[in-house]
């Protein structure tokens, strides 16, 4: 089984540092980014499964970043972290493809729990994709060759 890789995106540096330590203690791999651009840059080069994304950030805010992630990397699961209790912003996030949302201040356990759920969902999805592809190959082995051609 693949090990879950989490990316934390928040403008609070200390939060990133401490939370990274805590999650790593639980045995997961953690990346951090201080803003949306950095996050997108890191996603380009690394295979991240779950992004914990703060809604309110300077520059590119949470919702914009979410949209960009979902466009570029649709398989990456995103959990919104909001300081605002407005269900509105959370709903906006969910509509734009976020997997779930968390209210600040959130427990580490909570964060990890939600992340795990999202990761499992992603795993199931990947499993399905793999199965579908396998079926496709089984039906027509030539497809593999074709695919290779491309």
């Amino acid at each position, binding site marked *: 089984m693949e090990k879950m890789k989490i990316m934390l995106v928040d403008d*609070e540096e*200390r*939060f990133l540092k*401490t*939370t990274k*330590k*805590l999650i790593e*203690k639980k045995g997961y791999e953690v990346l951090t980014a201080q803003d949306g651009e950095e996050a997108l840059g890191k996603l380009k080069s690394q295979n991240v499964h779950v992004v914990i994304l703060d809604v*309110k950030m300077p520059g590119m805010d949470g919702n914009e970043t979410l949209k960009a992630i979902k466009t570029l990397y649709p398989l990456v699961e995103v959990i919104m972290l909001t*300081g*605002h*209790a*407005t*269900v*509105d912003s959370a709903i906006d996030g969910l509509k734009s493809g976020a997997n779930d949302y968390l*209210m*600040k*201040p*959130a*427990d*580490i356990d909570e964060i990890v729990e939600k992340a795990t759920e999202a990761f499992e969902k992603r795993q199931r999805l990947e499993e399905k994709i793999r199965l579908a592809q396998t079926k496709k190959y089984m039906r027509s082995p030539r497809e593999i060759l074709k695919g290779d051609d491309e």
Partner: protein
Amino acid sequence: MEKTNRERKEKEKQLKRSILTNMIIVPFIPFLLAMGVSFYFFTTALENNTVNSLKRIVEDHCDMIESFLVERQSDLEFITNTYNFEEINSTKAINTIFENLKNRSGAFVDLGLFDSQGIHIRYFGKYQLKGKEYKDEVWFKKVMQTGYYISDVFLGYRNIPHFIIAVRQNSGDKTWVLRATIDTQYFCTLVSKVRIGRTGEAYILNKYGVAQTLRRSGGIQVLEKDQDYLKFPKSQNSLQTFVNIDSAKNKYLYATIWLKNREWLMVVRQEKKDAYKSFYSALYISLMIMVIGGAIIVVIAIYTTEHILKRIEHLGIEKESLGNQLIRAAQLAEIGEMAAGFAHEINNPLQIIKSEYTLIETLMDDVFGKDGMEKNEDIIDIEDSVDQIKLQVNRCSEITHAILKFGRKNETKEQLLRPFIVIPEIISMIEKKAVVGGIEIIKSISEQAPGFMGDPSQFQQVILNLFNNAMDAIEERHGSSGGRMSVAVCRKNENRIEIKITDNGSGISPENIEKVFSPFFTTKPVGKGTGLGLSVCYGIIESFGGTMKVNSEQNVGTTFVISLPAIH
């Protein structure tokens, strides 16, 4: 403050004055005009009528007296034309003629025959006048001059007021005069026969103002001079009317007419009061109507003014309280927004504190927890302190979450809520807690009560909040028995329904009751309440288009009244 108060009082007074003046003057003008005009026309008509009737009476009466005198004169002329001097110049003849005359008219008292020298040669009557000489008497001179004469009243030899009618006859070389005396009594009766009203009377004066007949009301005797005569207007017209005040200060309405070739003046007079009796009763009635009508107008004006002012004052108070409510609502909204922004910013540092705490906890576990290392006192203190941090961070986050809830302006889904469905649902949520607290819940929710528009979860939040507050208050006063909480829903009027939640708890003190809806106001011990519950409720009910009020008495209980627009 005092100045504005005084100004307002002054304004109020001014307003009252102007309303009152208008209310009185406006109806008074047409009222007075109508009264005045009708009174003027009525009295003019009445006056003309009275004067005319007096004129008519004096004319008729004058005609009557004139014709009486003419008739008596004709009686005598008839005799002088029928008889010659020799025939008449005997006692027997005179007697017979007098008897005949007496039959014609009871006015004759006696009859006498005079020769051209004025010697009374024949006489029939009760006085001893035979043989007396009248040559120098005025009447005799006149009759010799003009052929006939009707005298004024005079005393004569007999010393009794009387007047005479005399005619002269020339037959051949003989000139003689026949004279008859008219009964004063008879004549007086004839003249004063006129009766008009209570005081109307008629009498005759000669051209010097000497009374020729008695006046029924007295005052002057026959042959006395009428003092008022001097005051009569002198005019060429035979007939005239005027008003005169007599010596006894009574106002009289006079009508006078000359008769007997302007020798006698027939006077008909009536006390003005009497003549204008109907005029005066009309005047009194008019005055009475005016006074009563005026009084009614004034009373109505005062009453209406009071009513209007009360209404204005009431509206003013309503406006003020509405204004206060608006200000309060705006303040609440502002505070809400500010608090929300503030809470949002606080959440970030809280998040960091929480993470740091978790890290410390984890590290502590790592260092001390696993291998059962003995903890010294300091370590235990650190652990306790860290636990406190956790506790306080959680408390902060509770507060910030409540603030954010209070300040949020998210879209809500309004739908028709029926009180008899939603309220029992909410009651069922707290029923267990109520039973434990020994609180009796009394429901009176009519199925006929109309519904209202609102977000169900928000409504639930409001009612739960009120229930919880009520139960806290009950617990504070009664402990775990004897509590009572009632929920009543009724239709207040066509457009509103009212939800009343009443408890018999500890109540709210008067100094706090103003502040219950203010955010962050709480009487609960630190850490037990955020002070936002009721202000959130207030905001929610307001967003439903309703209002929320509270009545409370300490150690009796509290009632929250929610009024909402009804939907049928």
